[in-house]
């Protein structure tokens, strides 16, 4: 049976405004007050995401400056482009062991 087209079906995957899901852990989740945020996302790099996060939540700044960004399962430098639909996680300094 055919299904009714949804908004997602009609928008191309690279459409401006596709939300970007970002997940947070540990002390960073505490500062953000959430484990997951959906940010409006026009496309861009890891550096763009860092700016976006800090602009919206200045309290994140000091910890964010010492954190890595994990894109699609890999730690990514600031110049890496974040593909639409990529899984993005903020990784504050680790303390396992």
């Amino acid at each position, binding site marked *: 049976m055919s299904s009714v087209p949804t908004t997602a079906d009609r928008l191309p995957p690279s459409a401006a405004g596709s939300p970007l899901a970002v*997940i947070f*852990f*540990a*002390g960073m989740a*505490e500062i953000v007050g959430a484990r997951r945020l959906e940010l409006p996302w026009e496309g861009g*790099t*890891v550096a763009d995401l860092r700016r976006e996060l800090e602009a919206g939540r200045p309290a994140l700044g000091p*910890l964010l*400056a*010492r*954190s*890595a*960004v*994990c*894109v*699609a*399962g*890999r*730690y*990514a*430098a*600031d*110049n*890496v*482009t974040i593909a639409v639909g990529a899984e993005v*996680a903020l*990784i*504050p*300094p*680790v*303390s*396992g*062991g």
Partner: protein
Amino acid sequence: MPAPLPTASSSAAPGPCPDAGACRFVHGPIDGAAILAAVAAPAAGGNVLFLGTTRGVTADVTTRSLDYEAHEKVAVVMLDGLRAEALARFGLCGCAIVHRLGRVVVGEASIAIAASAPHRREAFAATEWLLEQVKAAVPIWKCEEDGEGRRTWVHPGDLRGIGARG
């Protein structure tokens, strides 16, 4: 595209393939003996097990428990990569890494690393190397609860430079 994880062996490692379950998270007590038994091999002469346990006192600060969380999906892939790299780099017979998540009270183990090798030096060196790698880069965090019940997430150092360039 992001480069491979800096600590993971990128693709075809010359050593054995990682066994399913050799690197994993658990949510209850760690059975160190079982983990050491899992790396036993007829070719091994040296077998090392490290258990990291919650320490009750550091300097004059009392710890009641540690509470661990992880980015599990990414962390397991990194642990498997580290294991594969250690197998090849140190010529190990076997290797396993188990990390506990959730609350770990004083005296209980949060991590077990086991390595076996034909000779003792490689087994020691691999176990120490793996522990340093885990502590440096694998996305696991601990929250300390002190004697008064205050909880503090521990975020030492700086991971900013760790990512590979696009």
